[in-house]
């Protein structure tokens, strides 16, 4: 390749031909049947996606060097239908795909089904506008190919779960409407709007990491270890941040409620005791079970 040739795209064109040749060599794209032009086009597509047009040559090159070039070349060569690439892909990833599916579904049958479904998408059994659509074309080399496969499997799994939930709820709805009209849910006591506003304001002001930790632990039921793993920090760090976060949220909400005109005691009560949690059945309390007692007249006995 000549020293003046450049990458074709708008962003990555700043990368010099020599550097491009080095990237091409490092990717071993030639081994899986990709030409340097094809490889340059792929890099450009990815660079256009993640970099701004004003990115400097150095940053563009550093970005490209940071990609999983070999795995990227392999994935794109598979997508392009190169036999050799598929051989390598199957050797390296087929079993891992099933293992990952097993770890996600925790059940062998579903795991096979999930992995097979993804495998079909990877192979590109569907066609769109006359062209085979292969999911491997979406891999950009930002993380490992194995990690991307796991994420894609997990996405598919979550999507299936959501779809199934929607289907079930529709059936229930139909059924309920036809024969078993569901009873109206008991009326919930209204929350003080100031509490809702204060909570929203405090949560909106939380940092992303704080909110992630709170949501992961208190909503998703993740363990400290799992959260720590996601964030790349030690478990004790998560524990400390969680304790601190809960305390801070509580204090800030109370502060917001004070600003909204509540006394401290009212604010603390509003936060601690959700009116919806108070088991008071008003209708039951108002009903009169004992007629005689209700119409008791003095001296009737």
């Amino acid at each position, binding site marked *: 390749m000549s020293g003046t040739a450049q990458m074709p795209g708008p962003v990555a064109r700043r990368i010099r031909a020599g550097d491009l040749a080095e990237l091409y*060599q*490092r990717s*071993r794209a030639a081994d899986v049947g990709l030409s340097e032009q094809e490889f340059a086009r792929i890099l450009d597509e990815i660079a256009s996606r993640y970099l701004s047009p004003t990115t400097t040559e150095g940053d563009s090159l*550093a*970005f490209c*060097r*940071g*990609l*999983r*070039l*070999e795995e990227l070349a392999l994935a794109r060569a598979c997508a392009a239908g190169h036999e050799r690439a598929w051989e390598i892909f199957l050797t*390296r990833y087929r*079993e891992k795909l099933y293992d990952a599916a097993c770890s*996600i579904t925790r059940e062998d049958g579903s795991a096979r089904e999930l992995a097979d479904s993804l495998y079909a998408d990877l192979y590109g059994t569907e066609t769109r506008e006359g062209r085979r659509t292969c999911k491997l074309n*979406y891999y950009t080399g*930002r*993380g*490992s190919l*194995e*990690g*991307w496969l*796991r*994420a*894609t499997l*997990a*996405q598919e*799994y*979550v999507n299936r779960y959501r779809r199934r939930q929607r289907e079930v709820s529709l059936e229930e709805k139909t059924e309920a409407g036809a024969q078993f009209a569901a009873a109206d849910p008991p009326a919930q006591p209204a*929350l003080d709007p100031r*509490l*809702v506003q204060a*909570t*929203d304001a405090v*949560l909106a002001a*939380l940092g*992303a*990491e704080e*909110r*992630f930790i*709170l*949501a*992961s632990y*208190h*909503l*998703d039921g*993740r363990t400290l270890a*799992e959260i720590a793993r*996601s964030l*790349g*920090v*030690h478990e004790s760090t998560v*524990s400390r941040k*969680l*304790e601190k976060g*809960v305390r801070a*949220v509580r204090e800030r909400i109370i502060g917001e409620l004070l600003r909204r005109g509540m006394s401290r005691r009212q604010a603390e009560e509003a*936060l601690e005791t*959700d009116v*919806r*949690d108070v088991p008071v059945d008003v209708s039951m309390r108002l009903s009169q079970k004992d007629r005689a007692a209700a119409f008791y007249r003095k001296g009737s006995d």
Partner: protein
Amino acid sequence: MAEVPRIVRERLSGQAEGEHPDANLLSAFAEYGLTEQERRSVLDHLSRCADCRQIVALTAPEVSDERLAAAAAARSPAGAKPSWWRSPVVHWGALTAAALVVLIAVGERMRLREGHSASAPAIATVSSNEVAQKSTIPVPEVARPPAEPKQSTKKLAKPSGTPTQTPAVSPGKAGGVGGGIVGGSIATGGTGFGTGAAVGVQNAPTPPPPPAPSSPQMKMQAKAADAGGLPSDTGIEKSLHKANAAPPAASEAVIVTHAAPGLKNEGAVSSKSRSAAMLAKRASLTASWSISDSGALQRSLDGGRNWKDVAVGDGVTFRAVATVGNDVWAGGSGSALFHSADGGEHWSRVPVDANGRTLSGDVVRIEFADAQNGVLTGSTGETWTTSDAGATWRLQ
């Protein structure tokens, strides 16, 4: 753990609006492979999106505590910007001061001894060789003037000695890159003592480039820290220890310097010519190993002044190197692992597989306790061990 009020749980559970990050970003997030800006953006989405949180939780590979520590170190402010006490100026200053103190003490002792022998010549005559030998004992090797015990303190204290004077404490690139790339030694600057001692070798995946490194050296260090390095704040001690150690007992994961066995006890050198010959020999036999910014395996035979790429594994991007004596192990992209039994002259590719399974991802950490027993870690978190010098491997 304190419970949050119900209202907080409810308001927290609202779904994020807008587009979800794709599998590329989510997997890179799980592997700590995003830039800081991207990470913040994805984390913000995750904090509001239960579905994506679940995907990330299902995507995350099993990782060790060490890797978590490395990832944390890579993102900590200390990882991005060295603190003042880790600056090379402080390192060199402390080292110089220590060398000065020792040399003054030695000089004083010699002066007293000479005065004593002049006043009482009949008692004993101390040979110059003996003086040299005694004078060198307490002096740290980094500042020790070979066979020149009466050299001026100014000259002795100069930290950037020739590589032959300080073979194990590789200045400049050796320290910085080595500490950074895998071991994660921080803040050695251009002349620091980074050691990739086995404590901090980690396997975090593709690192997010830190915000605008100020120099190539810093850039490499920061990159390395992102790659999973654990900060080593005992770089000087380890370097000195390493300098004085004979063939290393345990592998050094990054920049590894090993001296030829025949040179390890050359403490007493009486003549200048012999010293020069020894130093030349030492320089020729001392090899430092490192990995360049672009992932090439590099060797320096002059204590880190000049580095040359070693042609091993065409197209492999190296991410870890370790040595034990003459054995050199280097690994990198595509599960590549190479071994040289003769200090890097000849190489062979070593397959890492067992029971039909092969190592996946990149080799990001290599650690050998001795010539036989080693551990290597892949970028996907897999840990493989060998107890027969790499002939067979076991997946942990």
